[in-house]
Structure formats: structure tokens, C-alpha cells
């Protein structure tokens, strides 16, 4: 069916947690289908429209990135509270991705490398300070994929997920039609 057949526009929110915004860029890669998209959905909290806090309940939440600090956890929790359907998209949201490479290294070692011993900081931090301030998020002991923090309804794999997969998934969610993923949209080699 044509996506335009949807009667009322669904409300959608998006966020990038411990990600690189690559998944959001891939979403924009749907090209001219963006025109179809804005007929299908209305954006609420999202970097696309810069709405910072939820102003209404949403139908769909799209989450890029996993949780590497307590602010990520806070945002993800808000998404879970305000979105009927929560979709994790991209490797980092699904598995932790690149940020999770630190998961085998104790946090203290990571922080000391970043602030005390790394080549760009060695000798330049005589007080040996590791930043801590109520205004900056607290780093988690490891990077958590989203489904280890909140219930995730659907997962879109890829680094990034292909624009076609994101589009097909959104259309399916908006129209209520079952998604039949095309092989090329999740074939990664």
C-alpha cells in the first residue's frame, strides 16, 4: 500500500545516545522519501527538530547508541516512558558497538589513560584530576546495549542500518503492516 494511505500522522521521537549520529545520517539517506515521511509522521523530541523534552506521548521512539553514562540511561528511560513502541537501531544500540570496546578494560584504567597517562595529557594534568562535576554525566562501569536497560520492542541491525531498512521498518510501524525485510538490507559483507 502507499504510505500516504495512513490516516493520522504517527508521532515519532529519535535520539542518539552513545552513538556517532551515523544511524541518524542513514535515516536522512532515505532521500526523496523524506517527503513521504513527513506526511506519515510528526517529529517530537529529536535532534532533527531540536525539541529537547517530550511535549506529548509518542507512538514510536528510535534509539541510536547504547548507554555509556547515566544521562544516556535517563534519556533512554524517558523514551521508554513516552514511546509506545521503542526501536533500537544500529550496532551500538543493539550490542554496545564501538564504545563497548572499553568493556574489557576496568573503568579506572580507561579514565586514567584519558586524563592522566595518554600521550596528549601526560604531564599536563599535574593535579591528576579526573573530571567530576554534578553537571557532567557519570560514566557507567561498562557500555550497556539498550535492551539491558529497558525493554526494546524491535531491533534494526547495521552500522549503520541501511536507509532502506529504516524506511521499510518505519512504514511497517506506521501502517501496521508486517515488515518483510529484504535480504540486501541486512547483508553486511
Amino acid at each position, binding site marked *: 500500500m502507499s504510505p500516504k494511505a495512513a490516516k493520522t500522522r504517527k508521532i515519532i521521537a529519535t535520539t542518539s545516545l552513545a552513538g556517532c549520529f551515523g544511524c541518524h545520517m542513514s535515516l536522512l539517506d532515505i532521500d526523496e522519501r523524506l517527503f513521504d515521511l513527513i506526511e506519515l509522521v510528526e517529529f517530537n523530541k529529536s535532534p532533527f527538530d531540536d525539541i529537547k523534552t517530550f511535549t506529548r506521548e509518542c507512538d514510536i521512539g528510535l534509539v541510536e547508541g547504547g548507554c555509556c553514562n*547515566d544521562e544516556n*540511561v535517563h534519556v533512554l*528511560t524517558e523514551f*521508554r*516512558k513516552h514511546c509506545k513502541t521503542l526501536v533500537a537501531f544500529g550496532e551500538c544500540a543493539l550490542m554496545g558497538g564501538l564504545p563497548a570496546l572499553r568493556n574489557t578494560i*576496568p*573503568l*579506572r584504567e580507561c*579514565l*586514567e589513560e584519558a586524563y592522566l597517562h595518554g600521550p596528549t595529557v601526560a604531564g599536563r594534568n599535574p593535579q*591528576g*584530576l*579526573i*573530571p*567530576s562535576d554534578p553537571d557532567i554525566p*557519570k*560514566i*557507567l*562501569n*561498562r557500555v*550497556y546495549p539498550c*535492551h*539491558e*536497560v*529497558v*525493554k526494546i520492542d524491535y531491533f534494526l541491525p547495521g552500522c549503520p542500518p541501511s536507509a532502506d531498512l529504516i524506511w521499510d521498518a518505519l512504514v511497517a510501524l506506521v501502517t501496521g503492516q508486517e515488515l518483510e525485510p529484504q535480504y540486501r538490507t541486512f547483508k553486511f559483507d
Partner: protein
Amino acid sequence: MEKNIEAITAKYRGDATRLMDILIDIQDELGCLTPATVARIAGVLGIPQVDVEQTVSFYHFFAREPRGRFAVYLNDSVVANFYGRAEVAAAFEIAAGCRFGEVSADGLLGLFHTACIGMSDQEPAALINGQVFPRLTPDKARALVAGMRAGKTIEELKGDKYGDGQNSHPLVRALVKNHIRQRGPTVFSDYTPGIALAKVTAMTSAEVIAAVKSASVRGRGGAGFPTGMKWEFARRAPGDVKYIFCNADEGEPGTFKDRVILTERPQMVFEGMAIAAYAVGADHGILYVRNEYRYLRAYLEQVLAVLRAQNLLGERIGGQAGFDFDISIQFGAGAYVCGEESALIESAEGKRGEPRDRPPFPVEKGYLQRPTVVNNVETLCSAVQVVLKGAEWYNRMGTEQSKGTKVLCVSGDCDQPGIYEVEWGFAVNDILAMAKARDVQAVQVGGPSGACIGPDEFGRVLAYEDLATGGSFIIIGRHRDILRDVVLNFARFFREESCGSCVPCRALTGMAQVVLERIIAGQGTAEDVARLQAWQKIMRNNRCGLGQTALNPIVTTIRNFRPLYEARLSRGDPRFVPSFDLPAAVRDYEAAVANG
């Protein structure tokens, strides 16, 4: 060290397919297999270092650093834990002054966990320098460590209270007990070596196979493949060189029948191999025995020597021209998956025990790519009795699809654990009564790869067509916490024993353990339970039986004991994952900046 390595490899003619023997012998000499030793072995054998390294790293009895003058491997099986294993472990740690996984500061002893060592009827048990110390208590553990400190030898530590039957044989001298509670007509009846072989040599090989076929002998390892058919495939397979393997790598937790059969009826097993060799046209046999039973080595070698002297092995057996067959013994080094026949063959070739892709099946291309029959210890005993007493006699016992008898290994919460040789077709209830079990909550039939059943299924019968079993029969009393005491132990076991070759097995055994631990901690969700069940489908794609059944402990208990799972599920908001703990997750950071 150089000399030892060269002498030992020379003993095996520098044959890299004998790597298991070479490594076992060198470790006996040197205590462990360090990187330098590994490099030297590779050099002497003329193979890449990584080929030696991968074999060393695969088997858990191969040590890459010293494990102490006394290496204590304390069994961590379900039944060992039923009988006070935790207290024994704690006593060992305190007395030794080191934790499990470590060696004491003076290098005197090392403490290590190990999976079921085949002593489920006399737990908790440990292997110390290859010798079995059954029925341990904290007092005995303390006395053992004190004895080590006082300079006693392993023989002095053992004492002389040897077990019954051949456990007291001068070449065995083991503290192990047989606990044969019921002698059946197949394995544990009266038996004189050589009579069956004499009958066989008067027959053609086709007649021998026909006899085994008409008796409907099926493989006793658990899968139940028709033995006569297997022999026929191997006989028809092209090639002059063929092999007969006896699989005595019983690693299924709760199984110990092969240990008792090899102690009391080794001649029958070897005679069964010779009969198979005659039927198939093989001239060499290998008895592959798990490392845990190495204390039987000298004894088994002597039995072979006697059989050779009686011309029941060797050249022109029974005076028959062209019937040449001899047997060698191959020990494993601690890997459950090697009980799978193609993994066992890989191991016997000196490699990691990873199951092969099939086809080709071992009967076509097995050991050294030659046609190979792999039969269970008990299967071979059945073949001997079929030859002796006839197919008709055999077919009178058992059920429609399961003829003959089965040796059961009964353990767990009962007064009479041990060996019961019964006809196929006994109900679970019958076995429970024989073993004097009371207040039974569940029975684990066929070991962890089998099924955990509750009282409503105790009327079911042991047979290939109903409850198939390789012999393991673990009784779980009313007072046990099945999830924590049984299922979690099995889940850890499979995670540890997965060879890692197939992704579903490697990944999902680990993930299943994590999810199970979460459920046990009261943080699981209904979705977690559904997920565990869904993974079973993926696991069917694994290459071998281990991978295909590795979630059985979990899925059979979800099926039969679902309330035990549901009672533990989190009652929290289903939108949030109960196991995620934000204050705990930021604790490391807070500590780092507090001291920074």
C-alpha cells in the same frame, strides 16, 4: 627437558597424530607444558607451533604452568554438590592457603575445578595426580593437605582401603567402589574370555553382522544407532585399512558405567572389539578412555597383554589365517565433547576435539580418513553376548524397539546409588524403588543432554521409543532447588565444554547462563523465559549433539517445572529491565573520581 621431549616423541616415532600421547607423557615428566616446551615439541615433530598450542589449550587437564606437586581436581558436578562439595572445597582452600584456580605459595598443591569425573555414586570426589579420592569430607580434605605437607607420597595419601572387585587389583589399587547393585544377563553375568571369539571365527563376517542385526543391538552411548548396520557400512566401505574404536570417553554428568565395565569386564570389551574387527575387516582398534580413568591404565595394558598371550589378540587370532587385530589405548585430556564420535577421532589424531561435518561419516572416512567404527563400551559387550547366546535370547529381553539390557548409573538422592543392569522397559518408578529413593522431586534422565522429568512422568519407561538414556539417572530430592542446584550447574557445564566451533553453541550457552542467573536472582522476566525456549530452535543448527542438546536442562525444566521459573520472575514494571542497577553501574566511576 630437551632429552625428555626427544625421547618421548621418539617413542611415538615422531608421529604428530600421536600428539595426545606425547603431550600426556611429557606433562607427566615435566609437570606442565610451558610455551618453551610447546615450541620444542613443535620443533621436534616438525609441525607449526600453533598446531601444538591449539591442542594443549583445548583440553583442561593440559597445564600451561605448574599446577603444584599435587594437582587436586575437585569434581564440581551436580551430585558432588548435593553431597557437600562446597564444604570440602572450603576446607581445601583454607588448608592449602590458596583459592581454586591457584597453586599454593610453596608450590605444593594446586586446587582446580573439574567436571563430572564419573564417580557420581561416591561423591564428593577428587582426582589428585590422577588418583581418585572418593567420598571426601572436610576432615579428609584437611588430612590430605596435612599429609602432603608431611611429605607423603600419593600412594601413602591413598592408604590401602581399596574398593571392591578389581579396584583392589595390584595394578589398580583404587579407593573407588563398583556399587554393582543389580547384575543383569549381558554385561555382569558370568563370562569367560575367548568363547565368543572362537564362535565368531567359525562364521563368515557377513554371518556375524547378520547375527548382530537380527538381535537389533543398538548403540548404548545414547543415540541408539543400529550396531549391525554401522558394522556393515564399514565393512562395505572401500579401503584395506579400517579401525575399530571403543568410545570410553563417558563424560555425560552422572554416568559411570564405563568405569565399572572397564574395571570388571575389560576382556569382554576387548573381545567385542575383536568381534567387530572380524566383522568389519579391521586390523587395529583403539580404546579411547577419558583421562579421568587413567588410574586403570596399567591394569588395562596387562589385560591386553594376557589376551595377546592367549592369542585372542595379535596375529592369526584363534589360529585363523588373516585375522590379525590388536588394540591400543588412547587417553583423552579432559573434554566432554570428545564423547561425540567424530570429535573423539579428531582427538585421537592429536587435534582439538572438534566434531567434524558429516557426511562423510566415520564409517566411510574416520580415523586417519579410513573407515572407522566407533562403538560404546556397553554396545561391544552386547555384541559378545549376542554371539555367545544368540539373537533370539537377546530379543526376549527389552521392549519392541529396545532389545536387551541397559546398564544404568543411578546417583543423587537415594540410599542405593550405583550400577543397575536392567532390561530395557523398566519404568522410572521401578528404578526409584530399586535405588530406595524417597521424596523425589525430579529425575534427570540421560544426563544434562537428556531431560529433567517430574513425578507425573515417572510411569514412563526407559527405552529408545520413550525415555532414551545413555545410562545417567540422577535423582533429585524434594529439598533441592532445581534451578540453582541442578540447571545452573548444567548450564555452566555446557558453556565450559562447548568446543566453540559453532556460533549458536558458543554464544548461546554463555547467554543462557547469564539469563538463567538473572532469573535465579529474581530479576528475570517472562520474556527471558520465552527467549530461552526460542533459542532451542537456533541450537538445533549446531554441528554435534552437545550443541544441539546444550539447552535441554533449561528447556526441559521450563516445560516440566514452569512454576519454579514463574515464582522467581520479577514483579517490576515490565518496561524496564529489572537486572539493570544504575547505582551499581556508576559505583566504579564514583570511586575513581573520589580517589582522583
